[in-house]
């Protein structure tokens, strides 16, 4: 069971800030494909991966990173702090 977190317009498009998921996805990309197949709002949120960032257990990662052992996956747009 992993926890998914969504921020900024990713959160708005998907319509919720977090959810728990049972998945067999081996990588972030596989997880994204699984979510997109589930419902249109996920497909809309993940339509352009170049405009998205992902963090695994609160560390920035790539979309081809493995999910083994990961408890928390967060998706969000490029950050705009400062």
């Amino acid at each position: 069971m992993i926890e998914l977190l969504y921020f900024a317009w990713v959160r708005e498009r998907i319509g919720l800030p977090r959810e728990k998921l049972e998945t067999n996805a081996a990588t972030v990309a596989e997880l994204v494909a699984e979510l997109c197949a589930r419902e249109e709002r996920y497909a809309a949120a993940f339509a352009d991966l170049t405009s998205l960032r992902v963090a695994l257990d609160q560390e920035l990662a790539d979309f081809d990173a493995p999910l083994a052992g990961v408890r928390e996956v967060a998706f969000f747009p490029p950050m705009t702090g400062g």
Partner: protein
Amino acid sequence: MRILVQSEAFDMGAEANAFAKTVSGAGAIVTFTGITRDSAKGDLEVMEIEHYPGMTERALTDIAIQAVARWSLAGCLVIHRYGRLRPHDPIMMVATAARHRADAFAAAEYLMDYLKSRAPFWKKEITASGTDWVAAQDADEDALKRW
């Protein structure tokens, strides 16, 4: 090293003075303060800053550790707000202290460049005509290449 992520307002001058008291042997103190700018049309009502609790503190701490490892710093402070800000409200500040000015300036710019693109904050402008997520700037991502 002091990292504060908070919704409360802060007093730039009071924070700068408090920081200066904690650094001994420093000949140079640099501060940077980011202020909420109005929209181009002058109709900004609220700048809403969303963040990722937990990761924010980790990311800011990592960035500060990198700065301390890279330059000879006598101290390093990062404050970043989240929540609803009004035009002219301070959003964030960094402060660095070092024996010499070059280190203090370089470390402050490094902190700002990384904080802009690597700390999980997102800004949304709320104006009379609607809401808009502030887009990341290519220039901010490019700024990282100099380090």
